[in-house]
């Protein structure tokens, strides 16, 4: 019995750029440029007839005022036919998962057959804004008819107002930064510094092993950059090839210097990168000469009070997605959890297996249970691979399907926590 109504949706291709630390290899590239690179290459590599593309759904979390609808610009810039419809989506760190599920719903309903979905993030190219008084003065000046009028508009602007304001990675509703929220979760859920550091080491160790083993060769494109296309960016540059557990303990907590446990080592770093997928109605896959990597079985989103535990919504979205899939955690062969912070991963896992949590928050349902270690993030996660906000969802989906293929397994659960107290999950299957 298909759990989702409507037509079944296949994921037929995926690709990402290398994920690199902000202000390194991609420091001169915009979110549009990164999105263009990955979409252009993906469409060629997947050998999709250009005419078959109905829609592009794409997003970026830190938007640029010049690109209010980045999906459209990515489609045009990547050389897709100009009549390919496009809309942008945002769901913080689950943005490209949202892009996928939005397109999947349209496919299920029969509105479209095939879509390119994804997201890109250029943390090296965030918009720097001016303070409110300066912004108001600039607008007033643009309306001024004479030079005097134009200058008058600035008379109430003070020197302090002239400092540009970079965007903060903080919750608008609570004012707490992401790290402070993670810190709060670590304390309330009793996640130790040692456990977090061990998780971070695991992430780097497994990611390095996967790179070493060539497991990303079908997932990561090479990007030629520089004025003369002379620089080749071929690999992620955050993964520590020689990660040692002892190293993590030496780092100082960033957000709570006295009692804290969140360090730069056990958090995901600011990252540049882009990722994309091609989704297609199952019934159209073969006639287009394509091959499914897997299918979307179910998905679910959830939200919690951001002032409570900002990144604990996966404790709600994952059970919901499993229920919609008609499956138990034991039916799942692979679990890919987005690692914003080690403390968040461990909090999510703890909630999943906790009877107490289920009683208090899930109306007494059975907890979904423990995830066996060997089924969990076997190629490392966002702490080691990096986390370009809008690209992570598409990375997780493609990476999970490739991993299933390699292991000859069938089902995967993807779980993502997102700013605003949001949680996202989906269940994928290969057959």
């Amino acid at each position, binding site marked *: 019995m298909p759990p989702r109504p409507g037509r079944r949706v296949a994921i037929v291709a995926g690709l990402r750029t290398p994920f690199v630390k902000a202000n390194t290899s991609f420091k001169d590239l915009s979110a549009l440029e990164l999105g263009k690179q990955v979409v252009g*290459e993906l469409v*060629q590599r997947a050998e999709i007839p250009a005419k078959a593309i109905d829609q592009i759904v794409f997003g970026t979390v830190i938007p640029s005022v010049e690109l209010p609808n980045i999906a459209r610009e990515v489609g045009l810039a990547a050389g897709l036919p100009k009549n390919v419809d496009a809309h942008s989506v945002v769901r913080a760190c689950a943005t490209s998962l949202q892009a996928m599920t939005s397109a999947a719903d349209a496919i299920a309903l029969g509105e479209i057959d095939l879509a390119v979905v994804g997201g890109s993030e250029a943390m090296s190219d965030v918009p720097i804004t001016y303070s409110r008084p300066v912004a108001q003065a600039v607008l007033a000046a643009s309306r001024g008819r004479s030079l005097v009028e134009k200058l008058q508009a600035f008379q109430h602007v003070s020197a302090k107002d002239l400092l540009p304001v970079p965007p903060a990675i903080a919750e608008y509703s609570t004012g707490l930064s992401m790290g402070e929220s993670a810190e709060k979760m670590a304390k309330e859920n009793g996640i130790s510094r040692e456990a977090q550091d061990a998780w971070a080491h695991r992430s780097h160790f497994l990611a390095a092993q996967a790179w070493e083993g060539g497991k990303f060769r079908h997932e990561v494109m090479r990007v*030629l950059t520089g004025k*003369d296309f*002379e620089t080749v960016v071929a690999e992620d540059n955050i993964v520590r090839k020689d990660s040692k557990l002892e190293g993590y303990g030496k780092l100082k907590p960033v957000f709570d210097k006295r009692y804290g446990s969140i360090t730069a080592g056990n958090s995901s770093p600011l990252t540049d990168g882009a990722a994309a997928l091609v989704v297609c109605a199952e019934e159209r896959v073969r006639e287009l000469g394509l091959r499914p990597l897997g299918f979307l079985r179910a998905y679910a989103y959830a939200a919690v009070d951001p002032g409570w535990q900002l990144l604990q919504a996966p404790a709600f979205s994952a059970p919901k997605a499993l229920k919609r899939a008609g499956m138990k955690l034991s039916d799942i062969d692979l679990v890919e959890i987005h690692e914003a912070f080690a403390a968040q991963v461990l909090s999510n896992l703890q909630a999943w297996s906790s009877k107490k949590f289920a009683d208090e928050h899930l109306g007494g349902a059975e907890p979904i249970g423990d995830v066996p270690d060997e089924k969990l993030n076997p190629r490392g996660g966002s702490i080691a691979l990096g986390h370009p906000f809008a690209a992570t969802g598409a990375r997780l989906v493609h990476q999970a399907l490739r991993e299933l293929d390699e292991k000859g397994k069938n089902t995967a659960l993807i779980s993502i926590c997102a700013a605003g107290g949001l949680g996202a999950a989906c269940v994928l299957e290969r057959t």
Partner: protein
Amino acid sequence: MGALRAETGPDGIALVLYDVPGERVNTLRDTFQQDFHEIFGRLAEDSAVKGVVVASAKPDNFVVGADVEMLARTKSAIEATALARGAQQALQRLEDLGKRKPVVAAIHGPALGGGLELALACTYRIASDDRKTQLGQPEVQLGLIPGGGGTQRLPALIGIAQAIDLILTGKSVRAAKARKLGLVDDVVPRAILVEVARRRARELAEGELRIERNKVELKLPKLLRTEVLQQIALEDNPVGRKILFQQARKALLAKTHGHYPAPERALEAIRIGVEKGTEEGYRAEANFFGELVASDVSRRLVEIFFATQTLKKDTGVDEPSVKPRDVEKAAILGAGLMGAGIAYVTADAGITVRLKDKDDAALGRGLKQIAGILDERLRRKRLSPREREEKLALITGTTDYSGMRNADVVIEAVFEDLSVKHGVVRDVEREAANAIFASNTSSIPIGLIAEAASRPDKIVGMHFFSPVNKMPLLEVIRGRSTGAEAVATVVALGKRIGKTVIVVNDGPGFYTSRILAPYINEAAFIFTDGAAVEDIDRALVDFGFPVGPMQLLDEVGIDVAAKVAHVMHDAFGGRLASPAGFEKLVESGRLGRKTKKGFYLYGESKTKEVDRAVYELTPQGHKRNSPTTGEIAERCVLQMVNEAAHCLGDGILRSARDGDVGAVFGLGWPPFRGGPFRYADSLGAAQVVERLRSYQDKFGVRFTPAPKLVQLASSGGKFHGR
């Protein structure tokens, strides 16, 4: 039915639409004088008509010029002069009408030659801002000058210096530039072109709008611009004008080497008009026009023009049922100079390109080359930044065969080596089984390349010339087993990317490389026999080639030429043997510009200088003793003509027309000499054979006349029927 129709609206404005029946483009045809007198005479008398708008009823062109067929039909200079006089009078009729009722030209699409002259005879001109809109006097490109008053009205409107520039070069300008030059009075979006033209006509009729044209806007900052100084200093006084004409003439002769009389005559017509008044000017224009139409130079240029026009309609195959395949995606193997060039022209035509090379560094160099060409166009404002991005985005790079399965055509531009080519053929048959495989080889027979193929019908040759984005010719090679669909597809692709395409049959060197070989060989013989490098090059440049053979060798690479020469010698025997001493050049590492060591010096100096050390490699050493310029040119050119005749006789060429077009557009054969076959026809086959035989007596088999020439010499026939 005439080409003009008029309809007067309630606003009192008559809209005259130019619409040559049954044609895609408007030209000035035999009937136009009559049409003009009739329509404009009637409008002049019709009291309901207050003003006139002249526009085209064609969707994308105004009037592209005089009908060239009409010109070609004229039998004498007198007849052609009469034609020009008639055109002048018809346009005078229009100008006279404009003195009573304003006539506004609404220009969308090309307004060229007679089309621009038509617009110039109007009172006011408005152009659409569309990219298709271009204005110019391209007559010199056909060895002619404007014959409908262009040499008189254009300088009066935009100034002598600017008019000289447009008429002598034949270049056209877009709407924005035309506005700047004062060639048009306003530029508007296409959608409102006719509407605005009507309004302006009404305003002019009612005196609401007055025409004020300042040739030069004397605003302070602009005073410093040289063109303004030039105009003030030279045009407004007789002494200055004299200098201006002298300078123009000098620059012209340096460019044409005296081979092209048309620009000189145009300059003279402008001068006469300026100095003696327009009456004299019009007369001179008509006389020169007549003289030029009947001249050999113009006849040859017109023939070439017709040949390219017929080639545009040629599918490249004789099977009428065969249709070219649609090409949406092309894969190009090899991102070197040629591969990147091919990728650029392909993407420029809007085709998706998958570019492959062995590693990222090679790919990066290819992309850099492509971006460089686009940047240059951006700099010249031929492209918008967005268009640049769009074109670049059509090209993705790869180091494996991913993304090629759905390519419609694969073009290989890998190393020129048979075993390498064979490897590529096998790879492509595995990875892109359905694709047509085109080899950009310049010398390896397609039949040999196809030996590695299990589907040889898909293998075809696409011989591009370097630099690919500039050279207009594409030589398509049909091997013995090449299928018609493959040929038709690459011919259509070639036309789509803007090339003039000839189809030739397979054989060593195909056509162009094959006729170039004995020409180069002859230059090499002359060199090794003791001639000075600059004398050889000068002789052929004087003949009309853009560069001489020695300089060409430096550009192509002496080693490359030697390799081709070897292949030709093996294939055709003694006739194509190159001089024994020539190998020494390659052995000594003298490979041409790429090694900065060839016949010329490649140092800091801007002026071209022969590297005299090269003489030490010949028996005569530094003591040079050149044959006459005439003999050098004749020997080299006869070699090319003779080999071309072999190609026609051997069935390499489908027609003499293709042979002429190939030589002109691929090898720089002087266009005013029409190509090797037209040239032979102009001399007469008997004369060619006689000259060949006299050299044969002196130099042996390499001058033995081709059977085809001997046959025509005895029958008194010509290569071209027409």
